[in-house]
């Protein structure tokens, strides 16, 4: 249950960030109701807020969303049934629901755990998005005074944190961050984010090149 409740503050921060970016109420609700993928939503709103184009916001969102393809494949044997049922269930393919589903002992419980968690997160995510949007829309001064413009970046950092557990991931993250910063002064907003995907190359360095510094 706590895994479901943990999404609430994320959704509030998303609602607030969307309001700050100038999204309308229905656009904000639409992102949470239809896209329904935390990092994809945050990335799109962040890039739009910086003045990025439709193309760069969309492509960055898709690159972050592609991992749900891998989740869906892990879960495919559990989500049996007629095609319309599988289609409906796939909307709640998420980090949280996969995590809960995967640790259950039998296939039946896996499915139950996945669905209960997925639906729980869906409901709470959408309610809290609305709360965040309503409370913080039109409160630009309050947001700056309370330092809440750091809430969005901090939420992104919290999403990144669990993905830094292995050395290849850490190398990728550092390289990607540097690429994005280096490109920012020369390119339209959003493009540096897309170019950062080449930071993945840092994970593929042969071991001999990794330590050039004497230790």
């Amino acid at each position, binding site marked *: 249950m706590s895994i479901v409740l943990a999404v609430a*503050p994320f959704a509030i921060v998303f609602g607030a960030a969307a309001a700050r970016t100038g999204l*309308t109420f229905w*656009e904000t609700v*639409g992102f949470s109701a*239809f*896209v329904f993928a935390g*990092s994809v939503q*945050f*990335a*799109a709103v962040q890039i*739009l807020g*910086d003045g990025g184009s439709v193309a760069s*916001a*969309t492509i960055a*969102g898709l690159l*972050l*969303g592609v*991992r*749900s*393809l*891998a989740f*869906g*494949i*892990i*879960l*495919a*044997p559990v989500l049996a049934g007629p095609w319309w049922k599988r289609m409906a*269930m*796939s*909307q709640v*393919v998420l980090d949280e629901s996969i995590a809960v589903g995967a640790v259950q002992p039998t296939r039946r419980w896996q499915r139950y755990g996945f669905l209960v968690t997925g639906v729980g997160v869906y409901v709470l995510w959408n309610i809290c998005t609305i709360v965040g949007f309503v409370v913080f829309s039109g409160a630009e001064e309050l947001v*700056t*005074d309370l*330092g*809440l*413009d*750091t*809430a969005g*970046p*901090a*939420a*992104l*950092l*919290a*999403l*990144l944190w669990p*993905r830094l557990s292995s050395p290849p*991931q*850490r190398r*990728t*993250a550092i*390289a*990607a961050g540097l690429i*994005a910063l280096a490109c*920012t002064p020369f*390119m339209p*907003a959003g493009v540096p984010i897309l170019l*950062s*995907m080449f930071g993945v190359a840092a*994970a593929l360095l042969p071991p001999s090149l990794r330590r050039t510094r004497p230790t």
Partner: protein
Amino acid sequence: MSAATAVLVLLTIGTYAFKSAGPLFVGARPLPPRVQNLVDLLPAALLAALVAVSTFGVGESLVVDARAAGMVVAALALWRRVPFVIVIILASATTALVRLIA
């Protein structure tokens, strides 16, 4: 149609396609290791880039301001495994405090 609505529609289609491809078509076949590797690394790259730019970017220029202080505190809090709500509160409070002093 506003830019945000366009992105909303495109991402709705895209993320839904990714989510449903496994259960609907692919079945339980595992991804090739190289592809799986890439899928594991892409979020780290893009999220790191978003963190960097949203911390230091103002339009097309880079600055170190009160947000950076908040992010240092956020990183420390995450490292100490502090719950997310507290991370956000600490980060925001630090940024606000630095602004107040500066």
